[in-house]
C-alpha cells in the first residue's frame, strides 16, 4: 500500500438479506467498490439516496461488516483492526449524535474521555474547539436548545475532539441554512489546510464542486466515475443546451429531429425538457431554432450553460442527483 493513501478499498461489498413476501432475497447495496483517498485531500463521495453511499460510509465507520472485499484505513485493516481505526479516525454521522439533554460542554468532555483522554486534557481539548468553532456563547446550555448550525458545529467538534488525522463527514450540511453551510465549508477548508484528510459524503453537487479535490460518484452500488471536479466536468463536453417544450410529445418529436446530427453528442430527455450536449452551443443554437421553427415545434425556454457537476451526474446516470426529492 502506498503511504499517501489513507483510505483504500478493493472490491468492497455489502449484501443484505431482506425477508420479503417471496422468501429471502439478497440485496446488493454495495457491489464491490474501489476507493483511494489521498492524504491531505478532501474526497467527495457523491450519490443519490439509496445508491449505497450510506452503506459504504457505515462500513468505513466500523458500524457495518463488509460482505466481501478489503479496506484499509490509515493502514489498519477494516476487518481486523477496528479498535485502532476507531481510536484514530473521527466520524460525524448525519444525525450527529450529540446528547441533547446534556450541555455542549458535557458532550465534548465525555467524548474526549471516551477516547481515553484524562479529565484535564479532555477539558483542555473541549475549550480549544469551543474557541475554534466559536461556540462559547451557547456551549453551556443544553444541546436541545441549539439552532441547526450550532448543533452541527457541536457535532463536528465531537468528531474532531481527539485530533484525528482523518475525518469522515456524513452529509455535514444537509438541512442547514445557507449561512451555516458557508460557515461549515470554511471550517472544512481550514481543517484541510492543517493537513487533515476529509472524506465527505454529500448529495449536493455545489458542495462537492467547491470543496473537493477528488470526487467519486456512486450509483446503484457501483462507482460510476472518479476524478477531480474539473476532469469530470470536461468529460461532459463543451456546452449543455436545455430546451423546454409544451408537452412530452413535442419533446419526443424534437428528439427524433436531433438524434442523427453529428454535432450533437448526446441527448437526454426528462418530462418536458431536453438536454443536449454539444461541442459548440453558440453555433448550433440559431440553426436548431430555425429547424424547430420549420417543423412547427414551439420552444418554450432555452438555457445554455457550461457543464456543472449536476450535468456530470446526469450524463453518467441519466438522472439528476436529487430527482427523488423533487417528486
Amino acid at each position: 500500500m502506498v503511504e499517501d493513501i489513507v483510505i483504500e478499498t478493493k472490491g468492497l461489498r455489502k449484501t443484505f438479506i431482506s425477508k420479503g413476501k417471496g422468501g429471502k432475497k439478497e440485496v446488493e447495496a454495495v457491489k464491490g467498490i474501489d476507493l483511494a483517498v489521498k492524504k491531505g485531500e478532501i474526497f467527495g463521495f457523491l450519490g443519490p439516496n439509496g445508491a449505497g453511499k450510506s452503506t459504504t460510509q457505515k462500513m468505513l465507520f466500523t458500524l457495518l461488516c463488509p460482505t466481501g472485499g478489503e479496506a484499509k484505513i490509515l493502514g489498519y485493516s477494516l476487518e481486523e483492526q477496528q479498535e485502532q481505526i476507531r481510536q484514530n479516525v473521527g466520524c460525524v454521522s448525519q444525525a450527529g449524535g450529540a446528547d441533547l439533554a446534556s450541555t455542549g460542554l458535557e458532550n465534548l468532555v465525555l467524548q474526549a474521555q471516551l477516547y481515553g483522554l484524562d479529565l484535564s486534557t479532555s477539558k483542555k481539548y473541549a475549550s480549544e474547539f469551543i474557541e475554534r468553532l466559536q461556540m462559547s456563547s451557547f456551549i453551556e446550555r443544553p444541546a436541545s436548545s441549539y439552532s441547526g448550525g450550532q448543533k452541527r458545529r457541536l457535532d463536528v467538534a465531537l468528531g474532531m475532539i481527539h485530533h484525528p488525522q482523518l475525518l469522515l463527514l456524513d452529509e455535514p450540511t444537509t438541512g442547514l441554512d445557507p449561512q451555516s453551510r458557508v460557515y461549515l465549508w470554511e471550517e472544512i477548508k481550514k481543517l484541510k489546510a492543517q493537513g487533515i484528510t476529509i472524506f465527505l459524503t454529500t448529495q449536493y453537487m455545489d458542495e462537492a464542486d467547491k470543496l473537493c479535490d477528488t470526487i467519486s460518484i456512486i450509483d446503484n452500488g457501483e462507482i460510476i466515475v472518479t476524478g477531480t471536479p474539473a476532469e469530470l466536468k470536461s468529460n461532459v463536453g463543451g456546452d449543455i443546451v436545455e430546451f423546454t417544450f409544451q408537452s412530452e410529445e413535442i419533446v419526443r418529436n424534437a428528439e427524433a429531429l436531433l438524434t442523427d446530427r453529428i454535432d450533437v453528442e448526446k441527448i437526454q430527455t426528462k418530462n418536458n425538457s431536453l438536454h443536449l450536449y454539444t461541442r459548440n452551443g453558440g453555433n448550433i443554437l440559431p440553426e436548431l431554432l430555425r429547424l424547430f421553427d420549420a417543423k412547427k415545434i414551439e420552444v418554450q425556454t432555452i438555457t445554455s450553460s457550461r457543464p456543472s457537476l449536476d450535468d456530470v451526474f446526469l450524463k453518467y446516470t441519466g438522472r439528476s442527483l436529487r430527482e427523488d426529492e423533487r417528486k
Partner: protein
Amino acid sequence: MSKMLHDTRLMFIRNMQHTIRNPVFIFASMFQPLLYLLLFMPLLNGLGGVPGLPAGKTVDVFIPGLLVMQALFGTAFVGFSLIDDIRTGVIERFLVTPVKRPAILLGRILRDAVILLLQCILITLVAIPFGLSVNGGGFLLALLLYALIGVTMASVSYGFALIYKIEDPLAPTLNTITLPVSLLSGIILPLVLAPLWLQDVGNFNPFYYAVNAARALFAGNFQNVAIAEGFVIVGALAILLFLWGLRSLEKMAS
C-alpha cells in the same frame, strides 16, 4: 479490564446526570407500589389467617413481594430512554469511539439498579409504620436480590429497544412479559392459594423463587433453602439476559 471499568464509570455518570436532572421520574415510578401499600394491603389484612398469610403478619409477607414487583415494573420500561438515544444518533456516536461495548449497557443498567435500590429503601421505610418488621442483614441481602432482578428486567428492556429501535412495539412486548411473570410469582396473593395447575406453572417462573427468597430474607430465616435458590436462579437469569442485550447492541454495529 481497567478500560472496561473506566468506560462503565463514564457511562454510569452520564446516565445518572440525566436521571438526576429529571428526578420526578424516580418518584413517579414509585407511585404504583405506594398505591398497593395504601389501597390494597388493607384488603389483604382482612384475609389474614389463610394459608401463606399468617394473621397479623400480612405486611411482612406482602412488602418483600411488592418490592419484587417494583423491581420488575420499575425497570421494565427503561428501554424507552435508549430508543431516544438511538434515534438522536447518540448510541451510534458511542459505537464509533473506542468505548467498550458492554460499558454502554452496563453504565445504564447500573444506574437503573441504583435508582431501584433507592426506591426499595424508600418504600420499606414507608411500610414500617404499617407494622413491617424486617431483619437488617436480611434486608441488605434482599436489596442485592432486587438489584439482580432490576439488571434482568433492564437487560430485557434494552435488548428489545435495540431490536425494535422504535417505541410502538416496545410497551406491548414488555407488558406481555411483566404481567404474567408478576401474576405467577405470588406477589399479590400467595401461590399456595392457587389451584394445582397454576402452582405448577408458577414453578417455572424464576421470579416466584425471588419472591420466596425475599420473604425469607426479610424474616431473617437464613437457613431457608429458598434464599440460595432465589439467588442462583435470578443471578443466572441476570447474566444470561445481560449477554443477550449485549448481543443486540453488537448487532447494531455489524
